[in-house]
């Protein structure tokens, strides 16, 4: 309702004459209401959700009924070298879809309601998912480079260095003594 009011306000501002014209605004309002109803009918959440869910159920029934599995061995062997590229592509794809979804929501001005909270929660989950994935992957170089590494054994190294130095000192002492003689 508020969005429609906003559109009406915009349309009225663009009008050449500024005097109130009840017939015009009523017509515009009716037109806007009609388009709104059409949109609602065309893109309801139920239709968007039912199609993938039906496909998934049909696939599941087919899988159980025929006893065939969906392991595509040859395809998997082919793609196993490209696994990293694929992951990258999937990452990019997810990122783009999420960004486009956010842009769509805000561009269309669907501000009040669940969609805004959905964009917040989806982006938060994307962030958490990425963190978990990065943690799981054991990346070559960590994001946070610690100044003190726990795995590095400082004490034993110091001990070795001390030992080497002592040996060197002893050698020098002997040499010196030899020279003195």
């Amino acid at each position, binding site marked *: 309702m508020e969005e429609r009011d*906003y559109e009406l*306000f*915009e349309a009225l501002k663009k009008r050449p004459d500024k005097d109130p014209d009840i017939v015009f605004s009523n017509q515009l309002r009716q037109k806007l209401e009609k388009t709104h109803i059409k949109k609602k009918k065309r893109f309801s959440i139920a239709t968007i959700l039912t199609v993938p869910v039906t496909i998934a159920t049909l696939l599941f029934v087919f899988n159980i009924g025929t006893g065939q599995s969906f392991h595509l061995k040859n395809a998997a062997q082919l793609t196993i070298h490209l696994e*990293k590229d694929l*992951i*990258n592509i999937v*990452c*990019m794809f*997810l*990122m783009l879809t*999420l*960004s486009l979804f*956010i*842009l769509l*929501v*805000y*561009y269309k*001005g669907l*501000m009040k309601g669940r969609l*805004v909270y959905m*964009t*917040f929660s989806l*982006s*938060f989950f*994307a*962030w958490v998912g*990425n*963190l978990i*994935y*990065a943690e799981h*992957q054991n990346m*070559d*170089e960590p*994001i*946070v480079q610690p*100044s003190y590494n726990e795995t590095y054994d400082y004490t034993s190294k110091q001990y070795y260095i001390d030992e080497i130095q002592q040996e060197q000192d002893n050698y020098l002492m002997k040499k010196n003594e030899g020279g003195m003689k």
Partner: protein
Amino acid sequence: MKNPYDHLFNGVCFVFVDLSNFGLPDMLPDFIGYIFFAYGIHLLPTYHNLKRWSKNFAIILTVMSFFLELGQWLGYSILGEIGVQFMQFLFIIFMYWVFQLLLHIHSNKPLEAKTFKTYQKFMAFMLCGFVIQAFSINVDTSMRENVHFIGSLLQIFAYFLFIFYYRACHKFYKEINEKKVHSL
């Protein structure tokens, strides 16, 4: 009377400008920005509940970012980049509340359309930047920096949008005050 928009603008500047990326100490710490936010929201002329909530949120963010900044200054970061990104996410949610409050204040006033448009673009850019930066962790090493930069660029756009909005608000506020003076 002080201009609340000035304080909001100062807050945004302090939160956005981060010199630690250039190897300098952070001269404009985030928590001072949140203090500015809290004061600016306090000066806004309304008694809506949103005002109280967003002010409290600003105070909570002040405390959180203070500890984060303290960790950075002392040289050990417990969560590293994760803490910074989490604060960024909280900042986006905070800006959502601030814009809701501004929309409430400007309803049926000349700046309503401008506020709404800025809100639309600001939130979209900020969230997209956040998402891109979140995904940049798992992107290939050679690409990581570039992807991260794209995310930052979007957020800089959002920052400039807020600057333009602030200029409009500043003019509007001045006009109102002049009118008041004339009527007196």
